[in-house]
């Protein structure tokens, strides 16, 4: 029997489509989480009522932020899930090496992020529709999303990028966890330290990390930041996973 020389791209392609099918559990949890998020969002994020110089108003604020945040957490969780033994071993049921497995995972995470970003924004529209019909409101104010398609697309794009960042983060945490369970404790400690450690300027480390992404108002710079951090996190995961043995 002659041996075949597989090409990396070819195997990555096969693994990618295989994983999209094999990880179907994640679609289920995505839908569940988004429905849950819609449910939570139903209460609104705030309300105000009073008299504005003779005009009585009753204002309710709603936001689809929770849906996006839930979707980001879903990304984090799904990515961490695919680093667990059971899922990693799934790779090794068929043709793979660590590089091809990781590459395929990267593409899977990209795909999941786009799916997550798209559905989170769309389910935001669903939320609006549900609120529109379930409240006896006179003034329902939301116009821009529909009237400005470029904003709509930007929204989906940036939501996808957030989900992707969380995916890659989850992937790295998952990989670290596979190496040593204590690393999770260390990360938690680092996180808490970051919450309370003040840096010059009055805010703490965590808020700085947060604002690094969230207050970036240039789409281009935001994209650069996201890519830089994602590549960094993913590279760390690559290095870790290359040292791991399978099926012990």
């Amino acid at each position, binding site marked *: 029997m002659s041996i075949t020389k597989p090409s990396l791209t070819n195997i990555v392609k096969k693994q990618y489509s295989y994983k999209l099918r094999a990880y*179907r559990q994640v679609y289920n949890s995505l839908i569940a989480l988004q429905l849950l998020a819609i449910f939570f969002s139903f209460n609104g994020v705030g309300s105000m009522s009073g008299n504005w110089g*003779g005009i009585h108003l009753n*204002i309710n604020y709603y936001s689809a932020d929770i849906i996006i945040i839930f979707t980001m957490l879903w990304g984090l969780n799904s990515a961490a899930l695919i680093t667990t033994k059971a899922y990693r071993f799934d790779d090794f049921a068929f043709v793979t090496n660590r590089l091809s497995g990781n590459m395929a995972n990267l593409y899977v995470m990209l795909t999941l992020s786009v799916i997550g970003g798209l559905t989170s924004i769309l389910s935001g529209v669903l939320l609006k*529709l549900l609120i529109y019909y379930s409240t006896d409101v006179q003034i329902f104010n939301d116009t821009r999303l529909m009237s400005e398609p470029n904003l709509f697309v930007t929204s989906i794009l940036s939501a996808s990028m957030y989900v992707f960042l969380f995916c890659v983060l989850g992937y790295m945490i998952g990989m670290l966890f596979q190496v040593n369970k204590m690393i999770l404790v260390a990360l938690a400690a680092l996180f808490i330290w970051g919450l309370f450690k003040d840096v010059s300027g009055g805010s703490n480390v965590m808020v700085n990390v947060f604002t690094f992404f969230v207050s970036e108002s240039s789409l281009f710079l935001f994209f650069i930041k996201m890519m830089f951090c994602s590549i960094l996190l993913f590279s760390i995961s690559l290095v870790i996973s290359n040292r791991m043995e399978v099926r012990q």
Partner: protein
Amino acid sequence: MTILSGILSLFILVFVAIGFFVIWRGLKGVKKSYVSKRYLKWLIRVYVSVLVLSIIWYSLLSVSNRIEDVPSTSGNFYDIAVNQSVDEIDPAFIGKQWSIDYEKNKLNIGTVDHEYLETPIIVYRSDKNNRKISATYYKKLVVSENDYSKEVKSIDLTLNQDRLLLYQPAQPDFKIVLFKKEFTIRQFTEEKLFEKREEDVSAQSLLYISIPKDLTLIAEDGLNIHYLDN
């Protein structure tokens, strides 16, 4: 509308049912760690069509057709009237105007049963004795660049011998739903992420009354009145 809400309640019912089913399956799935292909296929199909349907439905809603040219005046009517001139206020905000001939020297102004009228009133004493009382009611309700001023009912004003009676028409609270844009887009627009959105709603009213030079105006209780003298 009744058919629509009927369909919608069905929609919501199906939606809630799916939600419960999914959560139940999800919890069960933790143990079994797999979802059957057929179930998932249907779930995805239903979810995607709900999303697509809702975006189509939503874009057909009238909410997206409410855009009108918003009058340019910004700022508080009261301040404008006091510090600048009432003419600076965009006439588009004028709700109602009255012009009454009045011969007497004394005028009472008040409300039915002295009920408190929240609309601020500015009284301008003209430098002429033209025996004419003119009043203008300004109203404004702009919600994130959409003008709803027309929806606000104007107050009414009648002269009953020597008493000017102001009526506040019965108007229920305006129920406003405001959507914050997703934070993933907020950060790229002018708005700040954590900013409160109060300035999205701009609501105010003003009653501007111009009286002849020598008229004695007696304001009864329940009025938020301010005199503007030359």
